């Protein structure tokens, strides 16, 4: 391995030794060791222990569960997964990060803060000078719990509980790295805050927990990114992301997943959106071997507006299983979801989208569209929209399509001199344009567009 590609040339990327416990043989002592090493406060350590117990008593979901009917993980060898890894020391400058990560992260002027996690450790943290004066907290969870215990206790687990399912329990018990962001009342963060989760050690599992809370009237753009270049062995990531958007606050949250092809990533991600607030989730899913993700938007304050703009591109034998939930708990809320995906070779995608409008959530307005473009006759996309509407004065529209590139479009473009490949690329690009155009932050839009184009190009 090229030494410039590692943060710690002597050790990073070294295989975990036999002494490193596998998930199958872990004990409560090993969990306590993780807590000690990660510098958990007492609150965090207790939470871990409780979650560990709960996790051990809870089975994995089976294919009898509606949301797991089309994704079979029964053969997955969880017992061999390594939940910790050799230490990666912190670096003090982004230029000391692996070159491939620096490229992914992009120029410093396009962000206001950055946290980088490699394997199970945070290796780099950077914040704009203004953060302290603005009272913004942005740190790995354990550090945030030492700095701002009350805030962490208030928001950690407030949106996604550890005892929801085995994955959320596993994440809480084995948490590594992650990030805690708190933006106080009325504070506006100009440039995007970036959280990068990466990996390089074979067979290591990561359990990032990302917590974002915006107080009333606050504004921010936050990008969570999962990126790697496909180290040997398999990669596992079990993540939890919980977001709170306070009253009249505005959050653009981007999930940008471009793992190498060896990663199994299970994620539970949820936002609670407050009164008169604006939330926009831009989701890009390109990498990984198996990706299972819940993207849930709970509209909890009247006048809340929640938008999700997602794109995915599956190729080879990638398996994507997405679930979205537009949960209108109170009235006068608007949710607008557009989720578009393309599939090549033998890729398989499942999209299940639920809109629920609670009994008292009158005057809700919900829109949901899932569109799939199939580029190979061996690829398969399932789209399963559903509605649960208990209120009577609502507007609700949903639609799902699975289609192929139209021969007439290709002929038209080719007749003008474009070769078949370029013609297909244009049609695919055009398919994604409406969703990419919805990405509000220009630098992110350029980044995502380029990544989608590279993926489309094979």
């Amino acid at each position, binding site marked *: 391995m090229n030494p410039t590609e590692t943060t710690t040339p002597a050790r990073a990327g070294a295989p975990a030794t036999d002494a490193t416990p596998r998930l199958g043989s872990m004990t409560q002592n090993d969990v306590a060791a993780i807590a000690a090493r990660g510098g958990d406060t007492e609150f965090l350590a207790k939470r871990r222990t409780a979650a560990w117990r709960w996790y051990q008593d809870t089975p994995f979901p089976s294919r009898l569960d509606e949301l797991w009917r089309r994704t079979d993980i029964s053969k997955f060898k969880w017992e061999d997964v390594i939940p910790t890894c050799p230490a990666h020391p912190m670096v003090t400058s982004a230029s000391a990060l692996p070159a491939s990560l620096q490229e992914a992260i992009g120029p410093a002027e396009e962000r206001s803060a950055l946290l980088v996690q490699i394997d199970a450790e945070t290796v780099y943290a950077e914040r704009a000078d203004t953060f302290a004066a603005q009272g913004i907290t942005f740190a790995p969870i354990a550090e945030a719990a030492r700095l701002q215990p009350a805030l962490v206790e208030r928001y950690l687990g407030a949106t996604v509980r550890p005892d929801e399912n085995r994955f959320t329990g596993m994440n809480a018990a084995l948490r590594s790295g992650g990030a805690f962001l708190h933006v106080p009342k009325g504070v506006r963060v100009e440039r995007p805050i970036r959280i990068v989760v990466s990996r390089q050690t074979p067979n290591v599992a990561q359990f990032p927990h990302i917590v974002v809370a915006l107080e009333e009237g606050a504004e921010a753009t936050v990008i969570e990114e999962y990126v790697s270049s496909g180290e040997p062995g398999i990669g596992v990531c079990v993540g939890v992301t919980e977001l709170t958007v306070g009253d009249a606050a505005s959050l653009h949250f981007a999930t940008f997943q471009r793992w190498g092809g060896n990663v199994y990533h299970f994620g539970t991600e949820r936002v609670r959106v407050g009164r008169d607030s604006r939330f926009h989730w831009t989701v890009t899913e390109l990498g990984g071997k198996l990706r299972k993700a819940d993207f849930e938007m709970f509209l909890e304050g009247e006048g809340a507006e929640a938008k999700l703009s997602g794109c995915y591109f599956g190729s080879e034998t990638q398996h994507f299983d997405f679930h979205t939930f537009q949960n209108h708990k109170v009235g006068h809320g608007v949710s607008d979801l557009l989720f578009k995906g393309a599939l090549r070779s033998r890729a398989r995608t499942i999209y299940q989208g639920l809109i629920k409008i609670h009994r008292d959530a009158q005057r809700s307005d919900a829109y949901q569209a899932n569109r799939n473009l199939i580029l190979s006759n061996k690829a398969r996309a399932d789209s399963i929209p559903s509605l649960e509407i208990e209120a009577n004065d609502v507007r609700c529209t949903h639609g799902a399509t699975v289609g192929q590139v139209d021969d007439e479009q290709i002929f038209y473009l080719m*007749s003008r001199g474009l070769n078949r490949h370029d013609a297909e690329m244009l049609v695919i690009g055009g398919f994604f344009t409406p969703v990419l155009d919805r990405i509000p932050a220009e630098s992110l839009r350029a980044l995502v567009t380029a990544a989608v184009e590279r993926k489309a190009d094979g």
Partner: protein
Amino acid sequence: MTPTLHIKDLHVAVEGKPILKGLSLSVNKGEIHAIMGPNGSGKSTLANALMGNPKYEITSGQVLFHGEDISEWAADERGRKGLFLAFQYPTAIPGVSVANFLRMALQARRKAAGDEKPLPPKEFRKLMKEKMALLRVDDSFAGRYINDGFSGGEKKRAEILQMAMLRPEIAVLDETDSGLDIDALRIVSEGVNALAGPDLGVLLITHYQRILNYIKPQFVHVLVDGRIVKSGGSELAHELEAHGYDGIREASAA
């Protein structure tokens, strides 16, 4: 002299059904030919077969372009070489802007002509502006998605705009007049006339005589049941108008 486009005894089948049954025709640069025929005579089949639409199978005969048999060529090779089809029903490509597409198409065409360098963006924009003015379309046209939500007239103008940008040697206009009101027909015809000249050969396919009031062909051919049954000068169009296709059919059968 080798004709620019030479169609020799062309037989074309669609889904196994023979449509063109031995059609021969030569078109040179600098000439305007009109092919007139009733519905179902095979006009669109000819246009599609010339452009290389894979749904239209050439079962025998040849299409020669500068003496080279192009009947096995893919559509893009034909396009880059200087053949152009203005579609009767141009298809929409959502999400792809007219300008972006034309930039790529123009570059492909220039590259095939031996010019590796793309047109500098400034010159490209200038060219677009000039051609959009010719077709009297608004500047916003460049940023719109190809044929997406275009009116019938806009689609036809967009076809001629593309032709103006790509400067083909032979342009096949498939019922470019259909669905146009008089004003739009005039604009489109003026566009074609502005492009016509010694460097362009036009094959104008039409059901109606109307467009020939605006675009004056030197040669008129009557297509009936997959064959050209009569060829002549522009007077033939007037004859057709007076007697209809049945008159020609009877005359040619006699």
